[in-house]
């Protein structure tokens, strides 16, 4: 159940000089939201920049003085995020959530490797909390262009059994990208599933490694969107989908909405490259009953209109 509601800023802080964090009191959303789901926030009065901005949730605080709050993390990319960065305690926030389909959790104890790039790592912190609560093992690869763009590496060290930090300029951790040496990391951690979020080229590279090694991969995409609740059809991703034909299961390519069928997809089902051509070549009709490709041991069942937590 998604809600249109008002929250109140409980606190604003910084993670490195690059990232802002807002903790927002929004109990109805905090109680329902699952890792990978997002909230869509109105930034400013909406006259010049009319659309809400989507944010995945970095942390949900369930206990103590900050109970029922959600925390989002962002860097300043434009007028909307600049407005949010100026909010302080008691500021009112107009938000819609929880939105989308979050990460599918393992259905048995598993070694989970979380791979995050830049601010895209944000939902992986919430995910790590949930996975650890459920008794799964969590390992993390965290990367960014430089030290100041690493999102909370100290917390990563605390959360992960094995962690690896990379920066492209070598200013912290190993010089390189999160995907460099990923296979060795997977072997060392005996990884059984990968969860990843970040820029699309990174998601594509991680997905490719997972497909080669036949390991399930859950990717959370960052797509431009207008509505966030499934009506505008702007945030679509080309994905392979299966449907039951007359005699057999047929596969086809559909444009799936990142806001409702996503933002978490099976990375092996996404068409990362040459997507437009692939969709054009696929002559079969858009499936009215399309279901996501199932993965071996994560639960991806559920109605396409019902994100987890419904």
């Amino acid at each position, binding site marked *: *159940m*998604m*809600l*249109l509601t008002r929250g109140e800023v409980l606190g604003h802080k910084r993670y490195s000089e690059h990232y802002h964090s807002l903790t927002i009191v929004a109990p109805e959303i905090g109680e329902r939201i699952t890792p990978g789901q997002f909230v869509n926030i*109105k930034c400013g009065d*909406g*006259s*010049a*920049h*009319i*659309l*809400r901005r989507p944010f995945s949730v970095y942390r949900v605080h369930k206990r103590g003085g900050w109970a029922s709050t959600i925390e989002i993390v962002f860097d300043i990319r434009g007028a909307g995020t600049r407005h949010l960065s100026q909010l302080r305690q008691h500021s009112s926030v107009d938000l*819609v959530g929880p939105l989308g389909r979050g990460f599918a959790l393992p259905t048995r104890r598993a070694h989970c490797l979380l791979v995050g790039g830049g601010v895209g790592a944000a939902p992986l912190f919430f995910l790590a909390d949930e996975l650890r609560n459920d008794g799964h093992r969590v390992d993390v690869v965290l990367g960014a262009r430089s030290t100041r763009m690493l999102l909370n590496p100290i917390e990563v060290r605390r959360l992960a059994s094995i962690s690896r930090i990379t920066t492209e300029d070598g200013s912290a951790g190993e010089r390189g990208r999160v995907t460099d040496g990923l296979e060795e990391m997977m072997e060392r951690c005996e990884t059984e599933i990968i969860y990843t979020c970040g820029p699309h080229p990174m998601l594509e590279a991680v997905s490719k490694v997972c497909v080669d090694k036949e390991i399930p991969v859950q990717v959370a995409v960052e*797509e*431009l*969107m*207008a*509505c*966030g*609740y*499934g*009506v*505008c*059809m*702007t*945030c*679509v*991703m*080309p994905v392979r989908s299966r449907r039951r034909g007359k005699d057999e299961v047929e596969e086809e390519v*559909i*444009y799936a909405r990142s806001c*409702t069928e996503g933002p978490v997809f099976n990375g092996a089902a996404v068409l990362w490259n040459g*997507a*437009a051509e692939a*969709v054009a070549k*696929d002559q079969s*009709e*858009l499936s*009215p009953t399309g279901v996501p490709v199932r993965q071996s041991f994560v639960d991806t069942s559920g109605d396409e*209109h019902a994100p987890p937590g419904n």
Partner: protein
Amino acid sequence: MSPVDLSVRVGSVELKNPVLVASGTFGSGREGANFLEVGQVGGIITKSMTLVPWKGKPTPRMCETPSGMLNAIGIQNKGVDYFVSQDLPWLLNSKATVIASIAGNTVDEYVKVADKLRTGARELAAVELNISCPNLEDRNNMFAHSPDATAEVVSEVKRALPRVAVWPKLSPNVTSLTAIAGAALEAGADGLSLINTLFGMAIDVESRRPKLAGVVGGLSGPAIKPIAVRAIHEVHRAFPHVPIIGQGGVTSAEDALELMMAGASAVAVGTHNFVNPRASVDVAQGIASYMQSHDIDSVVDLVGMVKLEG
């Protein structure tokens, strides 16, 4: 204060209030039902449906622009059969007032969609003709750019659905809107939806690429409201007895009243549904408050009441 009468007649069509949701901005109502009762909305103008499912265009499909947004979605929809078997029963069960929006590449496609709607036609309040998609029979023109093509679509659909009100949705990207409106009316249109999006384009100066994969898209949002007001005024002055369904940049009761005073019998909220999924009912309530504070008993008394002299 005495209760105000928000009910309106758009030609032969009775609406419980004058605020609808515009095509393509509210799906077929299911997603929006998380936020409001679709039966309380003046009318649900559905996402345009086509004879067979359309996959839509590649991404990016959307970019935000000052006080508006551009989209090039390509009418991604599941087709008329899905609408008739799945969406229509749900809408009727939810007590919604349903206006089915039809799109196609050829006149024949419009007629075939209309034929498929005939069995449920008694349940439809009206059909809206989205004639702003490319006309494959006349490559460089949309139907709505030619009086003859507009007239042909209207008269053929009218022949297929003689007992249903037909509202062609006209494009503002024309030299003489009244000429097209006149052709539509002569062909049997029962009302006119004014306006569809305006052609626009945006370029990313870093990559030098268009911001939309479709290069050119439709501009919507508050940026186009003055054009909608002008277009409605112009057509209302030329055809004062023809009901107009005003659309274009409505975010508030004040916006809606502006369109009504220009000559719209009813209005539809479009892009603003992305920001506030409850906008249609909020705007209707705002109109009721305006009527109470201005001592107006019936909303019909506001239509076309702009004062041009004195």
